[in-house]
């Protein structure tokens, strides 16, 4: 097993800053836009983006939620591991709002498919966009593409992208782990 670092702390900060400005360019003052992080791993990125945008927009209150997709996954009863749900926090209606879904890594697209299903159970958003830190391109099982991307990477089936966050792992780090055959 080998590991290759692709993003370190300082670089991550710059990427998050760029993503925030891209979002502000599109959604200006966020008056009709909500940010929704995906449980369990997308929430560290979404919390930082939410906080950073609020700071850039001079402490403006921006609608923020965290969505759990456990009940909407298509591999329930088909995988080997039990799917345990995480906490869901959406205390506003998504009806007619612009929604930015945030996750750490986009791979097959199945998680986002489930997230779109879960989201529509909270109402009919006017528009839904997707922001990811890492896009593992050419790996999709479904026709889903991100609107905002931190970094695009080409990975093989024997590789894994691991994102570590200060909140859980003491440091910010993204690395690609290759399983040797």
């Amino acid at each position, binding site marked *: 097993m080998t590991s290759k670092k692709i993003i370190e702390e300082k670089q991550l900060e710059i990427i998050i800053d760029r993503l925030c400005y891209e979002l502000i360019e599109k959604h200006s003052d966020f008056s009709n836009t909500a940010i929704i992080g995906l449980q369990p791993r997308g929430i560290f990125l979404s919390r930082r983006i939410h906080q950073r945008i609020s700071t850039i927009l001079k402490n403006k209150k921006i609608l923020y939620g965290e969505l759990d997709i456990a*009940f909407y996954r298509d591999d*329930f009863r088909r995988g080997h591991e*039990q799917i*345990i749900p995480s906490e*869901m926090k959406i205390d506003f209606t998504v009806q007619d709002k612009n929604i930015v879904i945030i996750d750490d890594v986009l791979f097959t697209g199945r998680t986002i498919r489930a997230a779109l299903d879960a989201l529509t159970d909270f109402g009919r958003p006017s528009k839904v966009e997707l922001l990811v830190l890492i896009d593992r391109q050419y790996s999709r099982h479904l026709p889903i593409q991100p609107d905002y991307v931190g970094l695009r990477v080409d990975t093989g089936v024997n590789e894994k992208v691991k994102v570590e966050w200060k909140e859980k792992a003491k440091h910010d780090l993204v690395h690609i782990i290759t399983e040797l055959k």
Partner: protein
Amino acid sequence: MKKFSQRHLLGIKEITTDDIELVFETADNFKTVINRPIKKVPSLRDITVANIFFENSTRTRISFELAQKRLSADVVNFSASSSSVTKGETLVDTVKNILAMKVDMVVMRHPAPGAHIFLSKHIDAQIINAGDGTHEHPTQALLDAFSIREKLGSVKGKKIAIVGDITHSRVALSNIFCLQKLGAEVMVCGPTTLIPKYISSLGVKVEHDLMKALNWCDVANMLRIQLERQDIKYFPSLREYSMLYGLDKKRLDSLDKEIVIMHPGPINRGVEITSDVADSKHSIILNQVENGVAVRMAVMYLLAGQN
């Protein structure tokens, strides 16, 4: 990785404290689901569940059925009184015939203690015990403990008195196992004839004076007198029982603290509990009913997710 340790839910005795905590965490999620405008998730869309009731039920059957429907499962309902059981078919034959129609999970209530354990040795489907005679009623105990956790923040260290007909109550036994696994102290209270002789061997306190029990506890779980299971007289009259063990406003007000009042239903108003107590702010009886759906959704989700 967290995982539910059992393939069936036959009783609280068989499951671990971690299993109970896992059910609670999952039920928290389902509680948010059933309180939003769209109360349904697609998790169990390829599962068929049979609700097989050999005994009467209102709350449990509706609660299970709602839980199944909110998980998008297909549901078939069966009650013994309107079935071929009356023509002499055995339990295993009845269930095997239902399973031959491709049913994945069985929720069963049966008057014989241990019926579910027997059945689990003969069929492949997953089994959830919705009450077996005077033995166990695991989902009721889970929703009771979940409701205490919701009201008081935690179950650990709390004092819970179970009052009434302990001998004939499956709710009492499942509650004792569940509350003890979660670290609560349990007392049973009732007339000597309605308390099993060796119950203290389970580690519960025994009290025959209702006021002493109420003064001791943080939560009082009032049980119904199960007249349908009593083939002999256990006390002189319902009126006398009510005078000695019925919870009324006067008794509740005489305590120097506030306690939480629970009841698994059905209530016999004026016997074990008076209307003004059942409908008071101390009572979480209807919260128990609401939580029942979320807890049952969690149990079925965790069991079905194992395959």
